[in-house]
């Protein structure tokens, strides 16, 4: 249940909840988040102390709502920003503000100022926030959502995109314009109204304007395109519990820092199918993206001003060793990937399933380079390469296979076990500088939860990660990358208010004996209603911190961390 907001209501629907917040005088709601961190030097793990000795990030969203009208803003503070955040985020001020008027009865919804929007799966346009990573590419302009008749949804956006924050919002250079239309055929064609087969075609168009100029490549002087357009045709099809989708995307020439300023067009093909055969449910997804990096400023890289988002094919792991040592991120210039997932439940009360049932799932995900041929001569300078098929290329980016089984044994005891086999190309996703090439890793996890007393429980995790070996020129064998790791987590909770947690991550198999370090971190906290306070102290290794497949490098740190979140 980690990914859910749950609403319990008595005899009413969700619309009722939103309506209930609206009164004649209007309603103000808000939230606040504070993160404070102090630093101590630790040369062994590479932890440094920044000049300001401590880091402080805070933000608060305030929303005013009256009837169909909503207005809000977010106040942000980086004094100075916590290590691992974009260091150029500075000062305090308003980073997001908007006013919105929406009338569901006539199907009109207008926003001026900042907004987040996603078209379809986000391959063409996705503006969103991951506040924990400092990632925010909010749009700043106007959005119009129209639903002229039941079954037709039109979105229009026009604006700039957030790039930076220095006591105020700083937008990037380009202008982004987009249109998205989604049609539910069953709602507009009366004969299909009650059909089990539901078809929803969609079309999106996005264009960026940025002043051009010329670039010199080899002996050629090339003109930069000022207007870059992309479009997507997609469809979602439902049949009972089965669901499938397909999307074909194209983008015209967009020379950029990402693709080495080549003029090749971008293309993407994605499709998936999910359904069930008796108690076995499955998901298959295939995707090929070629040169689909799209930013509102062609000269920017990494997390700066992306217009779109190509999600990583791998499963978003939650266990520490599985999630943070070798997290896969989509190779932005192109990849061809596949994912298959199977879920099976042994029923409650059955012979194998036990009294409470047993859940199992198997996830296979892999990504390869594209099937391409490099071009030569002038064509090579201008277009770089050509793609031969939608299929897989020769170089493996990642292969991630995991099997998970979860069983509740009694009212007071449940357990979960996971095995994962990973082949990870650190040249495709550069998560480490210690090892270049394919890392082979096996990860074993056992999680248990024991209800010790009424409303008290102990949760533990035992995790082990082992890497393969490689031979140097003298024939000596070494463990790949940082070698083997073990993590132990113990967490005790007194529902509904208190928790303590201790985590030890131990790099016991590091080929460099000096680096066989325990990263010990303890935290305790208090939760009350919609407020949460947590205080932690300890060492954290240098690494990659990911939220939902988006990752940022975080330096090693040693010190105290206090977080407070609240909503009202």
């Amino acid at each position: 249940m980690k990914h859910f907001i749950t609403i319990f209501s008595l005899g009413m629907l969700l619309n009722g909840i939103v309506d209930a917040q609206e009164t004649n005088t209007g309603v103000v709601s808000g939230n606040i988040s504070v993160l404070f961190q102090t630093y101590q030097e630790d040369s062994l793990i590479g932890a440094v102390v920044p000049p300001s000795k401590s880091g402080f990030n805070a933000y608060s969203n305030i929303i005013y709502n009256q009837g169909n009208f909503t207005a809000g803003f977010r106040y942000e503070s980086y004094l100075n920003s916590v290590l691992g955040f974009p260091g150029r985020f500075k000062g305090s001020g308003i980073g997001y503000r908007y006013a919105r008027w929406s009338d569901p009865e006539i199907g009109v919804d207008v926003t001026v100022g900042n907004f987040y929007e996603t078209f379809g799966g986000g391959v063409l346009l996705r503006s969103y926030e991951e506040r924990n990573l400092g990632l925010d590419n909010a749009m700043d302009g106007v959005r119009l959502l129209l639903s002229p008749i039941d079954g037709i949804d039109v979105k229009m956006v026009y604006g700039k995109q957030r790039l930076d924050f220095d006591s105020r919002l700083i937008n990037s250079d380009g202008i982004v314009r987009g249109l998205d239309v989604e049609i539910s055929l069953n709602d507009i064609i009366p004969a299909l109204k009650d059909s089990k087969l539901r078809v929803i075609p969609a079309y999106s168009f996005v264009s960026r304007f940025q002043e051009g100029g010329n670039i010199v490549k080899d002996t050629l002087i090339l003109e930069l395109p000022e207007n870059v357009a992309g479009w997507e045709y997609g469809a979602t099809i439902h049949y009972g519990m089965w669901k499938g989708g397909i999307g074909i995307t194209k983008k015209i020439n967009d020379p950029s820092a990402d693709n080495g300023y080549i003029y090749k067009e971008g293309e993407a093909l994605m499709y998936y199918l999910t359904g069930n055969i008796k108690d076995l449910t499955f998901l298959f997804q295939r995707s090929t993206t070629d040169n689909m990096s799209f930013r509102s400023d062609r000269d920017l890289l990494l997390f700066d001003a992306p217009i779109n988002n190509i999600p990583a094919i791998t499963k978003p792991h939650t266990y520490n060793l599985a999630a943070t040592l070798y997290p896969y991120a989509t190779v932005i210039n192109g990849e061809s990937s596949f994912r298959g997932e199977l879920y099976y439940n042994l029923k409650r009360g059955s012979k194998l399933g036990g009294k409470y049932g047993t859940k199992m799932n198997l996830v296979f995900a892999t990504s390869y380079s594209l099937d391409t041929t490099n071009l030569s001569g002038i064509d090579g300078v201008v277009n770089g390469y050509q793609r031969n098929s939608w299929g897989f290329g020769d170089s493996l980016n990642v292969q991630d296979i995991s099997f998970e089984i979860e069983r509740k044994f009694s009212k007071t005891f449940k357990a979960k076990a996971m095995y994962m086999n990973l082949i990870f190309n650190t040249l495709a996703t550069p998560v480490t500088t210690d090892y270049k090439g394919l890392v082979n890793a096996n990860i074993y996890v056992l999680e248990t939860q024991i209800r010790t007393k009424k409303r008290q429980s102990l949760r533990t995790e035992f995790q082990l990660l082992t890497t393969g070996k490689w031979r140097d020129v003298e024939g000596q064998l070494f463990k790949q990358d940082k070698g083997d790791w073990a993590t132990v987590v113990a967490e005790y909770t007194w529902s509904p208010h208190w928790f303590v947690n201790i985590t030890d991550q131990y790099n016991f198999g590091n080929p460099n004996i000096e680096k066989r370090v325990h990263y010990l971190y303890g935290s305790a906290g208090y939760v009350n209603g919609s407020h949460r306070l947590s205080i932690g102290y300890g060492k954290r290794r240098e690494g990659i911190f990911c939220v939902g497949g988006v990752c940022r490098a975080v330096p090693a740190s040693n010190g105290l961390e206090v977080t407070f979140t609240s909503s009202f």
Partner: protein
Amino acid sequence: MDYYGDWQEETGVKIVAVSIDDSRSTNRVSPYIMSSGWEFEILLDPAGDFKRAMQVMNVPHTFLYNGNGELVWSHNNYSEGDEEELYEELLKLVD
């Protein structure tokens, strides 16, 4: 979630769960729910609009509304045993 059937019978409560999985994992929600056999309504909030409107900071976040649509209880995070407090709050509403 194991108690939903009993709670519904006793109190008439209705559960609506909103998944905040983004475009990377929205496709995984439906097979997960099918295999879990959850019998309540599941909605998707892939762009986080509803999450922002509800001022949710940490998930899971549970809201309890009475029959008039008024918020009577909310709790962020989940630890084993929290459902007992929720059940007590539910009983208060039907008494």
